[in-house]
C-alpha cells in the first residue's frame, strides 16, 4: 500500500480521524499505520502562487483484487474499484479544480458539501471516495468469524449479543431502499449511554455528517453485488458477514474512535 505523500504545508489531517494530532494519538501501531495511509495526495506547488493544490488519488484495497474470491469475485472488484471508485476520484478532482475546495481534506469537503442536507455537487463524489476506501478496509481475505476484546464487550453491552448486532446489520442493509450503505458506528456523545449503533444511509451519505464515527460498512448499491448475486441482496449481506467482514479492522477503528472521544 502506497504511503501518503509528504505535504510540507497541510498537517496530516486524516480523512477518518479529524481530531488527531500530528502523532496520531492512537495507541495501537496497526491503527496508526492504517490511519497514516488513508490519504494519498500528490502535492504539486503551483508556480508563483501561495496556494497549494493537490489531487486525490485512487487508493487500492489492502489486498489483491482476487483475494476475496469466491465470496466477492475479482470481476466485481475490478469494476467496483477499477471503474466506480476510480470514477469518483477522477470526477471529484475535476469538480474541485480551481475552487477553494482544492486545498481541503476529503473529510472537510464532505462536511462542507453536505451543506446540512442541501447537497452541493461535489458531495456525491467526495463521500463515495471516502465510503469506498472504508468499505475495502471493512473486509479482508478469510474474514468473518466473531469480534473479540473491547469490541465484543461493547457489542454485547449495546446490542445484547453479537447475534443481535448481526440481525440489526442485516436488517439495515436489506431495507435501505435504493442505493446506500449500512454502518456500525461509534457515537461519541450518546444520550442513552449506547456508544455503538447501526445506521443506514442513502446514496453517498455517511454517518460522519451525523457526528458519528463509522467503524464498519456494507455497500448496498446494486453495483456492489449484482454481478455475483444479482437481485439477491440478502444472500450478499450474509456472505459479507460470514466470510468477508474484518472484525480486527473494526476493533482497530473503534480503538481510535474511543481515544478521540476521550
Amino acid at each position: 500500500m502506497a504511503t501518503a505523500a509528504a505535504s510540507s504545508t497541510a498537517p496530516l489531517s486524516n480523512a477518518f480521524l479529524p481530531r488527531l494530532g500530528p502523532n496520531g494519538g492512537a495507541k495501537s501501531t496497526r491503527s496508526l499505520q492504517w490511519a497514516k495511509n488513508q490519504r494519498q495526495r500528490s502535492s504539486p506547488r503551483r508556480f508563483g502562487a501561495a496556494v497549494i493544490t493537490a489531487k486525490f488519488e485512487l487508493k487500492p484495497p489492502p489486498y489483491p483484487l482476487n483475494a476475496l474470491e469466491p465470496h466477492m469475485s475479482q470481476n466485481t472488484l475490478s469494476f467496483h474499484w477499477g471503474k466506480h471508485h476510480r470514477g469518483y476520484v477522477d470526477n471529484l478532482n475535476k469538480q474541485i479544480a480551481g475552487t477553494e475546495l482544492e486545498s481541503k481534506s476529503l473529510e472537510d469537503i464532505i462536511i462542507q458539501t453536505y451543506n446540512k442536507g442541501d447537497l452541493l455537487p461535489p458531495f456525491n463524489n467526495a463521500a463515495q471516495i471516502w465510503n469506498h476506501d472504508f468499505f475495502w478496509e471493512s473486509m479482508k481475505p478469510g474474514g468473518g468469524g466473531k469480534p473479540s476484546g473491547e469490541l465484543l464487550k461493547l457489542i454485547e453491552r449495546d446490542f445484547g449479543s453479537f447475534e443481535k448486532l448481526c440481525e440489526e446489520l442485516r436488517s439495515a442493509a436489506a431495507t435501505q431502499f435504493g442505493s446506500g450503505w449500512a454502518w456500525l458506528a461509534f457515537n461519541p456523545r450518546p444520550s442513552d449511554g449506547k456508544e455503538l449503533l447501526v445506521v443506514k444511509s442513502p446514496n453517498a451519505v455517511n454517518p460522519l455528517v451525523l457526528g458519528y464515527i463509522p467503524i464498519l460498512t456494507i455497500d448496498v448499491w446494486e453495483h456492489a453485488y449484482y454481478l455475483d448475486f444479482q437481485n439477491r441482496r440478502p444472500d450478499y449481506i450474509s456472505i459479507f458477514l460470514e466470510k468477508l467482514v474484518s472484525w480486527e479492522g473494526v476493533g482497530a477503528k473503534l480503538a481510535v474512535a474511543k481515544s478521540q472521544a476521550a
Partner: protein
Amino acid sequence: MALRALLTRKTLASAPRLGGAAAAASFRGLQTSSLPDLPYDYGALQPAISGEIMQLHHQKHHQAYVTNYNKALEQLHDAMGKGDAPAVVKLQSAIKFNGGGHVNHSIFWKNLAPIQEGGGEPPKGSLGWAIDDHFQSLDALVQKMNAEGAALQGSGWVWLGVDKELKKLVVETTSNQDPLVTKGPSLIPLIGIDVWEHAYYLQYKNVRPDYLKNIWKVINWKYASEVYEKECP
C-alpha cells in the same frame, strides 16, 4: 379462511395474465395487484437489452415490488381497521417504494417493444410535432434525457411526461421508485427509463451512458403517442 385466501392470492399471482397494474385478486374486500405479463419474450429486445436482464428485471425485481406492495396494503388495511394512525403513517414509505416500483415498471414494459414490432421507430403525428415544438428535434430530446439519466445520483428514473393541464411536454427525473406524479400532480408519464443499476448492470456494467444510448432502439413510441393523444386530443 386465512388459508383459502392465501391459496387464492398465490394462484392468481402465478397465473399469466395480460392487462396492467389493475387489481387481480381480492380477499376481505382488499384489491391487490399482480405482476403483468410482458407483451414480448425476454429475449426480444436484444441486443439493446439482454434476455438475462429482462427476465431478472421482470421475474425478480418487479415481482418483489408487487409482493411487498400487496403485503404493505394488507398491513395498511389492518391498521386502518384498528384506527392505528401511527401504523398507517409508518406504512406510507413501504407503499411508496413498492407501489411506486409496481406502477413504474408496469409503464416501463409498455415503453419497450421489439424492433420488429416498431421499437425504435420515431413518433409520428401530434407527439412528433410536440417534440419538435418543445425540444427542437427528437435527437435533442434524446440527448437531454440521456444527460439527465446519466447524471442521476443513485437509483431512479428519467421521464418524458406531459403536463395535462398546461399541455406541455416535460423531461423530469425521480429518485428511487417515486412515480412521475411526485414531481407534479398533473404530470402524466409517456416514457420512463429505469436507471437503477439492476436495469443495465449485467450488460453495460458501470457505463450507464451506453445503456441510455442503446435503449432508444427499442423504445415504443406508439404507446407514448397513444397516451399523449388521450391527454392532448
